[in-house]
């Protein structure tokens, strides 16, 4: 397998706070890499550095050996790396088609045939029939697909998806998961995925890295990562794991790690799974 994107010793410091701390990351060609971690772990900051919207304090990002970090988002997009936003940000004053056309035109500075390419992407994201509408009329799931479509229209090699599943209802979540898979299968993209909805990450990702307080604390196959004691500690909190290990259990009790390990990781409470909040109407996010 060839590595398509590599982040070397990537750090970002905001004043005294180290939002991202010496993270190393490799993305293989055609891979879906999940990035998980508690709130404030630095996931979105990591994305912003890879996508070129903020310059790293140290380190660099390479796409097939060429540095793409530290410039502008445009440089990253031209090279072939594009991101979506956790809180969807469609261009409210453009129609759905025009939103995607902006990506098609400016992504690779190719105005010719932009309309046709945009329509093809809309087809792919099941938004074709919404083309002449304003994005305000879409459901949250629709706007998330629009966000994805706009990014796809820039014809990237690597797609950075920031929570495209969280917040939509279960049926739409499944649809989005299928869409992400077909982005890889049919369009041949490599994907890095930040996601809070654990089952989705587990099913979609080939590999997962875990961030906590800016540091990469674990990496591996999804099934292995969820059993990692440091990961569990990060999710349940230091005190919980400390208490668990300090507890003088009865003789012959399992090690704290395996004993406390839940079958699957709990979802952080701030980001409810679709199952727990089945309906988040069309106006979920503003």
């Amino acid at each position, binding site marked *: 397998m060839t590595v398509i994107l590599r982040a070397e010793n990537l750090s970002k410091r905001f004043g005294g706070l180290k939002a991202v701390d010496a993270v190393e990351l490799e993305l293989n060609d055609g891979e879906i890499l999940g990035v998980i971690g508690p709130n404030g772990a630095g996931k979105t900051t990591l994305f912003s550095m890879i996508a070129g919207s903020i310059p790293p304090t140290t380190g660099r990002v390479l796409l097939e050996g060429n540095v793409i970090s530290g410039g502008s*988002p*445009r440089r990253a997009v031209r090279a072939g790396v*594009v991101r979506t936003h956790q809180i969807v940000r469609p261009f409210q004053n453009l*129609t759905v088609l025009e939103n995607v056309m902006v990506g098609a035109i*400016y992504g690779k500075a190719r105005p010719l045939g932009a309309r046709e390419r945009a329509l093809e992407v809309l087809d792919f994201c099941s938004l074709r029939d919404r083309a002449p509408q304003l994005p305000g009329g879409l459901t949250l799931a629709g706007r998330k697909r629009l966000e994805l479509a706009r990014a796809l229209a820039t014809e990237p090699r690597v797609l950075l998806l920031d929570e495209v599943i969280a917040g939509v209802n279960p049926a739409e979540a499944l649809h989005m998961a299928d869409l992400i898979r077909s982005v890889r299968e049919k369009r041949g993209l490599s994907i890095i995925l930040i996601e809070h909805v654990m089952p989705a990450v587990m099913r979609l990702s080939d590999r997962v890295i875990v961030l906590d307080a800016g540091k990469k604390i674990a990496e591996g196959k999804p099934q292995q990562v969820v059993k990692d004691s440091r990961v569990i500690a990060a999710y349940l909190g230091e005190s919980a794991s400390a208490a668990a290990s300090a507890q003088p259990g009865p003789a012959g009790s399992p090690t704290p790690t395996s004993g406390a390990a839940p079958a699957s990781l709990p979802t952080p409470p701030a980001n409810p799974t679709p199952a727990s909040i089945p309906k988040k109407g069309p106006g979920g996010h503003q």
Partner: protein
Amino acid sequence: MKLLPHWVSRPALVALLAALVVGAVLPKVLGLSVYSQNQVTETFLFVAAALAWNWMGGYLGQVSFGHSAMFGLGGFISARLLLALHLPFWLAWIVGGLVAAAYALVWGHPTLRLRGPYFSIATIGVGEATRLVMTYWEDLTGGSSGLSLPITPGLKSELYWWALALMALVIAASYSLRKSTFGLGLLAIKSDVDAAADVGISPTLMQDIVLLLSGFTVGVCGAFYASYQNFIEPGDMFGFDRSISFVLMAVIGGVGTIIGPALGAVVFVMLRQYLIGSYPQLYLGIYGLLLIVVILFEPLGMMGLFFRIARRFGLMRPEVEATLEAKAAVGGGAADPGARQGGAP
């Protein structure tokens, strides 16, 4: 063979050409008096200036209260060139416009990274600082006594056609800046600067280009105004009232629409003529009231009224009307108005 880009609509082109022809034969057909013809010339001139202001204020959502700086600079540079070098006036206009555009870039490139109110207030500062400096820079502006330009016989009536051509060019530019792929990028920037940057747009570059075009055009208008008036002084050319007048024309007609500011300029020139004649003490307050009333009741001005009528009588398909209205409106982006582009939080 395709002669025109795909975004040029034939009806729009035909309408512009027709208007141009009507404008060209108007003085002859109506037998306009010298006075009326001059009024029309001035109206054409301000239509051009208002549209150029709208490229910043409406297309980018960057409301400038300092466009008098470029208007005045264009005027005085071209006046000095006419006096010193006896250049043909059109050449002097172009040079005046270029200097104004360069000046716009000098202050605009740094300030355009600011959005919304932050940018607007910076422009108040730029406008006032320019006025102060220019009022005392006697070598350029002649100080408070101003500059007189030689009166060329017949020039005033000839300027009618020049103003018509200038206006037609600016209308065509306004149309292109909205409908072209470049225009789509501007709309994206207005809606959400950061999201636009994330799909490969360079907001800095595009905003600079628009400012250059806007500054150039307003500079040419100032230069034109100088030749047309024969006498200019800094208090009038660089005054705050001058900047406000551009804002008002656009607001009355419809900020952010393609043709609204042109309608607004027509109304404004007539209104000002009337007010200065009848209520010289009140005109500032009436401008203020107009701003308040338009913003409160019809933020898209005359075009907003037109949209309303179109909706009422089914002249336009509702979704077409809705998308037109959305393009004119200031974007609905989530970004803080004071936030810088692509900056760290």
